[in-house]
Each structure stands twice: as structure tokens, then as C-alpha cells.
């Protein structure tokens, strides 16, 4: 076990991928000798040469477009968009080609490429450096969209993304680049399209991803002081969505809150709420709520703390989960009943009107 920052874990993943697979190429803006503005590609040009890790012209559409061509011809390009908002010039390539090529050619031309994007706020970045752009990508059929929350996942998921036969938008929570965690060199965590339960709890589920997983865990710790036992699910994969893991958690707890940094209106959380409600309606003791950023363009650094969901706002939202209904509920520890679908339910969940 080594303690690494998320940026170091990502660097190690690229390093190992470059070493293991001749087809892997890393390029983008300033990813060469500088090592990327966040140093994720630090030392790669030195170790593998200009041929494998290099600075390209400063043009995001061209970066992704050339990656499409490389992937068409058997390479495995890993390209970097320097910041979330600077990925927008490449949007047409992503939506019209990256996401569609495998489908439009009936599987004839698969595009095994990875687009790395540092995303989200919380680093005091000025305008255009803090967008949460995940919903644009997650809404686009044909893309895998994943986001790690821990250094161990950062390593494992990036390796898996590079090995994937499908194009992957790999969203890196930039405010967590410097947070540390144990990484077993070479070790793989759960498959990248699976959500995981980061904290087991019984009273409510916090559903989070990327930068908000840590915040959700902090919230759960604070809630336990208030007598609430909160489960935290880290989605990891935004597309496809791991219905099974999320549904199992919410059916168990009966209450859920989705947390993300992105503006709430039309945000990724809306999809999560819809899916959870469709699948867990009779298990729910309260509407599934969302905590997200306000519906405003990303604010200036001195105001971003008011925009970003924090522990207090999430606690307040948890408090709105109609806990009063508990007072009339049977005990949670009542004997279990078996639902028609074979799931074991706490007795209270069989009530028609929870």
C-alpha cells in the first residue's frame, strides 16, 4: 500500500498503461514537459518519449477529432481537455463522432479512446474553470461517463477506461486531485460501471459521485452525531447507471438524497431521482430530494462556497425527508416479510401507504 494523491494515482495509471500497451498515447494541451496544469501527466514524456505523450496544437475539437482517427486505426488515445469548460469546443466531435461511430458503423469502427476532463469547482478558479459538465456527456448515448472519488478508484477506473472497447469520458474531480488515499500498486477496485456503498447505514441513502462523495461522507459523519445512520453510495459510473446497487440501497433505507455540484435544473440528479422513484416507489418514506448547485452560471471564487453543496445544506435536506412519518411507523426491527420478487423487506415497507 502506498499513500497517493488522486493526481498521483492518475499519473500512475497512465504510466502503467503506457508501459503495458504500445497502442496507448497521451496528448493534449501542456501535457508534455510541463506535465499538465494539474501535473497528472508529470514525467510521462520523459519516461516514454515525445511519441507517446506530447503537446498538440491548442484546439480541443482537433484533439478529439484526431483521437477519433487514431482509435479508428487501432490506437488507444487518452486525451486531456485542460478544464471542463474548455472541452466545449470538442463537443461536436464528442456527440457526433465519438459517441456514434461504433453504432453508425454497426460495430465496424469501435473507438477505444478516453477523454480526461478535470471538472467541478471548489478550487477558487476564475470564470470557466469550475463547470460541472457531466450531464451533457451522460445524456449522450454511446458514451461511458465515469468519475472516481478516491485515489484507488482513480487508478483502477482510468486503467479500465483505457482498456475499454468503448469511448469513455473520464471526469476527474479537480478539487480532489490533492486528497490522499491508499493505493495498492496495480490493484483494481470494483468494475468501473458499478456503484459502490462507501458507508453502510440504515436511515437514508446519500447518492453522490466525484467531488461530492467526500462531502457526503462528511455529512454522514455529522448526521450520526444527530442520531441518523446514513448510507453513502458512490455512483462512479454516470452512464451507464448502476440501478441495482442504488435501488438495493434505497429499498433498504426508504429515503434518499442525490448530491451534486452541478446546477440542479435538468441536472444529472433529476435522472437519478426519476430512476429511483420508478423503481423504489413503494419502499420510499419520503420523496427523493436533490441537493445541487443553484441554477446560476458558476459563481466567482469568493462566492462559490455559497453555491457548492456543503455538509450543512445536505444535513438540512436530510432533515426534510419527512421523518415525522416515522412516528407512526411500526418498528424498523419488525419481522421481515418476503416480497413477491423475492426481496426481503422490513415489515413497514409492505404498507400500501407509507
Amino acid at each position, binding site marked *: 500500500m502506498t499513500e497517493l494523491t488522486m493526481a498521483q494515482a492518475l499519473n500512475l495509471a497512465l504510466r502503467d498503461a503506457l508501459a503495458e500497451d504500445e497502442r496507448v498515447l497521451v496528448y493534449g494541451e501542456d501535457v508534455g514537459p510541463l506535465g499538465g496544469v494539474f501535473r497528472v501527466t508529470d514525467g510521462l514524456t520523459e519516461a516514454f518519449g515525445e511519441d507517446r505523450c506530447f503537446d498538440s496544437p491548442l484546439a480541443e475539437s*482537433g484533439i478529439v477529432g484526431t483521437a477519433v*482517427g487514431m482509435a479508428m486505426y487501432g*490506437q488507444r488515445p487518452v486525451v486531456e481537455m485542460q478544464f471542463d469548460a474548455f472541452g466545449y469546443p470538442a463537443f461536436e466531435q464528442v456527440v457526433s*463522432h465519438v459517441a456514434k461511430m461504433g453504432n453508425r*458503423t454497426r460495430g*465496424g469502427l469501435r473507438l477505444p479512446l478516453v477523454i480526461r476532463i478535470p471538472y467541478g469547482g471548489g478550487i477558487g478558479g476564475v470564470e470557466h474553470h469550475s463547470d460541472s459538465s457531466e450531464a451533457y456527456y451522460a445524456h449522450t448515448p454511446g458514451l461511458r461517463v465515469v468519475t472516481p472519488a478516491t485515489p484507488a478508484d482513480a487508478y483502477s477506473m482510468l486503467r479500465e477506461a483505457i482498456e475499454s472497447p*468503448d469511448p469513455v469520458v473520464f471526469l476527474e474531480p479537480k478539487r480532489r486531485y490533492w486528497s490522499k488515499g491508499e493505493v495498492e500498486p496495480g490493484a483494481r477496485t470494483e468494475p468501473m460501471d458499478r456503484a459502490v456503498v462507501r458507508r453502510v447505514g440504515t436511515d437514508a441513502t446519500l447518492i453522490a459521485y466525484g467531488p461530492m462523495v467526500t462531502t457526503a461522507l462528511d455529512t454522514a459523519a455529522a448526521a450520526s452525531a444527530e442520531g441518523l445512520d446514513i448510507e453513502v453510495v458512490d455512483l462512479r459510473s454516470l452512464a451507464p447507471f448502476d440501478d441495482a446497487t442504488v435501488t438495493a440501497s434505497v429499498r433498504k433505507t426508504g429515503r434518499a438524497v442525490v448530491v451534486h455540484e452541478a446546477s440542479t435544473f435538468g441536472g444529472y440528479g433529476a435522472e437519478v431521482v426519476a430512476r429511483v422513484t420508478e423503481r423504489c416507489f413503494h419502499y420510499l418514506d419520503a420523496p427523493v430530494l436533490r441537493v445541487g448547485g443553484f441554477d446560476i452560471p458558476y459563481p466567482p471564487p469568493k462566492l462559490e462556497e455559497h453555491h457548492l453543496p456543503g455538509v450543512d445544506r445536505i444535513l438540512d435536506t436530510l432533515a426534510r425527508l419527512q421523518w415525522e412519518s416515522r412516528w407512526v411507523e411500526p418498528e424498523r426491527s419488525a419481522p421481515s416479510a418476503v416480497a413477491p420478487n423475492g426481496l426481503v423487506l422490513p415489515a413497514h415497507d409492505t404498507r400500501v401507504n407509507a
Partner: protein
Amino acid sequence: MKRIDERPAPAPPGLPSLEPVRLVDRHGRRVDTPLYQSPGNAVLLELLRGMVVGRRFDQQAGALTRQGRLAVYPSSHGQEACQVGGALALDEGDWLFPTYRDSVALVTRGVDPVEVLTLLRGNWHSGYDSNRYRCAPQCTPLATNASHAVGLTYAARRKGENVAALVLMGDGATSEGDAHEAYNFAAVWNAPVVFLIQNNQWAISVPVHKQSKAPTLAHKAIGYGIRGHHVDGNDAAAVHSVVSGALADARAGKGPAIIEAQTYRIDPHTNADAPQRYRDATEVDRWRGRDPLNRLEALLRAEGLLDDDALAAMAAEGEALATRVRERMAGEDTLDPDELFAHVFASPTAQLLEQRQALRDELREA
């Protein structure tokens, strides 16, 4: 370009000539053009054959559209010299990056004509095996496949293969940011990519002078530090000569080139277009007088390389192709709705399998 003397190549950026390079004038007479060499007789005959067959294919596709058998068809009529001249300049190992307009280039490249029409018939988004024919899928978002060619040749170079690529684009597409990015990437990476701009004078209803202030579109090459060539796009011999020269230069490590070919879209933009709203019929007539097939035919006849029988054989070949296309597209296609979910990812996700099942149930109940 194939230089016939030993003069060194003009250091890029050399200015493309304002007068397009021409090897055969509109009456079918040879034009003495220093620096550019005419293709040999066999290639000239092959160019005419490709254009005759291509035009017949184009007419057939138009007819199928009027019968409702194609959803839409952007015609190549008038642009045969560019499409055939360009496609025939490719080596077997090279790649072609066509647009929606370039069906004739694909047929010339040897792609099954019915597979060429899959997209326009509305059956699927691309009907042919790109790897087999070394032709990328036909691209509709303008200029966006140009950078793919740059990336593909980069990948080929990494594999030790000397592959060049020919990107076809329209005059309107050169205004797109993606055209600029592709030219620039190609230049910086010294990529073996030739961009052939078929300037057919119109981007749907917008004339080329509203696209650019450049003296010619080939002049754009100067800003990228690469070669630019300006060619008569209704002169198949000139197109072939200039494109094969540029491809040879590219394969020889001399970098990319931008070629502007002056041509004309005789037909409407697609069957859905209304050209009388924006252009004068006399303009079309003027360009009919510069027909690329007539020109090459006149040359070959004058030089004793073509007689009525040889031309009839080419026409018969086109007729046979048209008949095959008609017959194969006469019936109704059976499409499998399951396939909607099959190719989105290398293997379908749980969500797609669920949706596939839902559609199956819906169809069973219907």
C-alpha cells in the same frame, strides 16, 4: 505534384496560381502546363470510364429518390472529375474520407453501390465496411472528419505503415472551425493528408464569395505553411495529376496539402432543394458547357484512344450497374429493430437490454 523538371519545390507557402491548373481545356485540347504531368493513356481511359459509370449511378440514385426509395440524395452531377480523379489517385493502402456528396467517389473506390446508398436509403447510418474499403463513413457534420484523417495517418505511421489520406470537403465546409483545426494539425504533425476542396460554387444556397475573402480557397494553405494547389475541377486529368502528386508528396514525408478544385453542382443541393430561389439557370447552362465527361471524351477521341465501341462499353457498364442497383433496391428491406441496441457499445448495457425487451414486448402486442 509530379514535377517534370528538376526545379526544387517552391518552399511552402508557395502561392497557388489564381488561374486553376488545367491539362485539358473545355474543348478537349491539351494545355501545356509546366510542373504538372498528364496521367498516362490508361489512366485517362480509366478516368472516363469512372465518370461514365459514376454519372449513370448518380442518375439512378436520383431516380430512386423520386420513387421514394432513397430518403435523400445529394447529387454528384457535374463533380465527377473531382470524385473520380480524386478516388483513382489513391493507392490501395490509402484512406478516403468522404462526405454525403461523394457517393461517386465511393463507387469509384470499389465500394458496393448498394452499400454506398444505405445511409441515404435510411437503413442504417453507414452501409459499408470501412476497414475493407479503407473508406471512412460518409460524414455529414461539415469538416468534422478532416481531423479523423489526420489522426488515422498518425496511427498508421506509428504502426510503420505509409498510409496517406484524402479528405473530400465542400467550399462551404472550409469556413468551419474544424477545417482550420484539421489543416493546422496536419501541418504541425506533417501528416500525409490531402484535403480536396470541391468548390462547387454553392453551399446549399450560399455562394462561395460569402464564405471567404481568400483569393482562392487553396491560398488558405499559406497560413498553415503547407502546399496549396488550385485546379480545374472539371478536368479529370488535372485533378488526378494534382491529387496524385500531392498524395505522393505526402507519402514521401513532405506533408499535407490543400487543393481547391473549381467545379459546379449541376443539380439541386439535394432533391429537397429549390435552386431557382437563389441561382440563375444561365449559370447552370454555362457550367454544363464545361462538362467533365465531354471534355475528356473529346480529348481521347482526338488522340485516337477512344472510339464509339469503347464508349458504348463504358455506357453499358454503367447501365449494368444501374440495373443491379435498381434490382437490389426494388424490394422492401427487412430491418431488425433489435439491432437498434446492438452496436451502441461493444456489448449492450443492462439499460439497453431492458429497452430492447420493452420494444420487443411493444412489437409483440402491436
